[in-house]
């Protein structure tokens, strides 16, 4: 009962915060609401016994990515925000697409069926702790995809440095 109460709180706060983010005029307030959203998403991860993901969500998204967002907002000096009533002209189109996707999600929940349980049951993850379970799977079963992802990230980092250096020479 208490768990359900908390779930309802986290889920509804996610929805409310996202709705507020896209309707704020003040960009700074929108960024802060997004921070609130990330906290509640981290809370939802905890319901799935994914404590490692919850911590990473806060460290990476709230601690690093949102700080970069704040940097950009501060450097663009968007204190008041553009004086337009709406940011995007074709927002009805966006609304239709979003509503359509939402409809697909809602309809698909009615046809949801539980799949067969894999090797990693909740009890097994709990005894092993989520962090070591993720580490074990990443470095045994999914070694190749993990390495490919890290090489792609490395390429992106080198690319960023190369682009920044070219700008300096001009």
């Amino acid at each position: 009962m208490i768990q359900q109460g908390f779930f309802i709180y986290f889920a509804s706060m996610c929805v409310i915060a996202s709705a507020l983010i896209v309707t704020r005029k003040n960009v700074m307030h929108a960024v802060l609401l997004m921070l609130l959203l990330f906290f509640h998403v981290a809370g939802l991860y905890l319901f799935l016994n994914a404590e490692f993901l919850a911590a990473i969500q806060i460290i990476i998204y709230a601690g690093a990515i949102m700080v970069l967002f704040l940097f950009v907002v501060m450097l663009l000096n968007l204190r008041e925000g553009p004086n337009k009533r709406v940011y995007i002209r074709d927002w009805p189109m966006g609304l239709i697409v979003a509503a359509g996707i939402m409809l697909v999600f809602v309809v698909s929940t009615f046809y949801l069926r539980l799949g067969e349980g894999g090797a990693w049951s909740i009890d097994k993850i709990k005894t092993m702790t989520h962090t070591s379970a993720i580490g074990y799977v990443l470095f045994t079963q999914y070694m190749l995809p993990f390495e490919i992802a890290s090489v792609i990230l490395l390429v992106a980092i080198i690319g960023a440095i190369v682009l920044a250096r070219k700008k300096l020479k001009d």
Partner: protein
Amino acid sequence: MNIGSAIELKGLLWDIGVIIFKIAIVLAAVMGHVAYATYFERKVIARMQMRLGPMIVGPYGILQPIADGIKSFFKEDIIPANADKPIFFMAPVFGLMAALTTLAVIPFYDGFIISNINIGLLFIFAMSSLGVYGIILAGWASNSKYSFLGSLRCSAQVISYEVSLGLSLVGVMLMAGSLNLTDIVHAQQRYPGGLYIIPQFIGFFTFVVSAIAETNRTPFDLPEAETELVAGFFTEYSGMRFALFFMAEYTGMIVMSSVAVLCYLGGWTLPPFILKLLPFLAAVPGIVWFVLKLYACIFFYYWIRATLPRYRYDQLMSIGWKVLIPLSLVNVVITALMKLWFTNSHV
């Protein structure tokens, strides 16, 4: 409602009561320490500079923190024109909240912990990375150039040093095989040396330097460099809101020192060779050792502050990225190889 659920409810209320009681104890103890850490700091630095420090309020100035508290409480609360009021009000509270939340996962002695979670260390990283928001938002919302420059410097600094802070503790995580702080202390007890500072000396060095930078203390206090930026990000704050920033900074110091004590200095335990030499020390309760080690770490902060001049900003960045991060990466690789060779343990 049947009897079973009534008993369940009673147990739940009891648990909640115990947790609230623990939170009250920890908060009271830490806030008392924060207040007297300022007194301790002024006295220590004064002695190092051949002065006396506070001497007027009470014997040896012992009531100075209380006088400071009363003064900042009754001061006028000035809000700059054009400040973003909700964010201006929220920023110091956010900073202090991030610092105080961390206390929930710190075991002060065996079994005394508010919330014994498996990802204790990650939780501390998460909260210490949130502390930067208090500073950025304060700088932005006060609508002042000095505050803004201070907060920009601070965010770049904290993001950079967070990386080396996290990497330096990876060595400890590898050796203990856990992120739970209680388990880390128990693993140190089982370890022959008794302290992880001996095998992890590179990690301890990078941890200490990054922890000083992460809490914005001298010689890395660029965000509040008085000579250039008036007072940095809290230039426009006065009265109690200014005191909140102060409390957040000192709580951050206590938290970082506790992490150093728990991860490198054996927490509330003593190394086995000392206990073999002086067996009567085992009778002393663990909290005493924890607190003594904590005070030693905090004294180290003050010692550094009284000794070293402030770095230049580009020096700060090059120390972080070109020295500390490579060093801590080397430490991770060496620790992992050692663990593989010496234990041959498989999951």
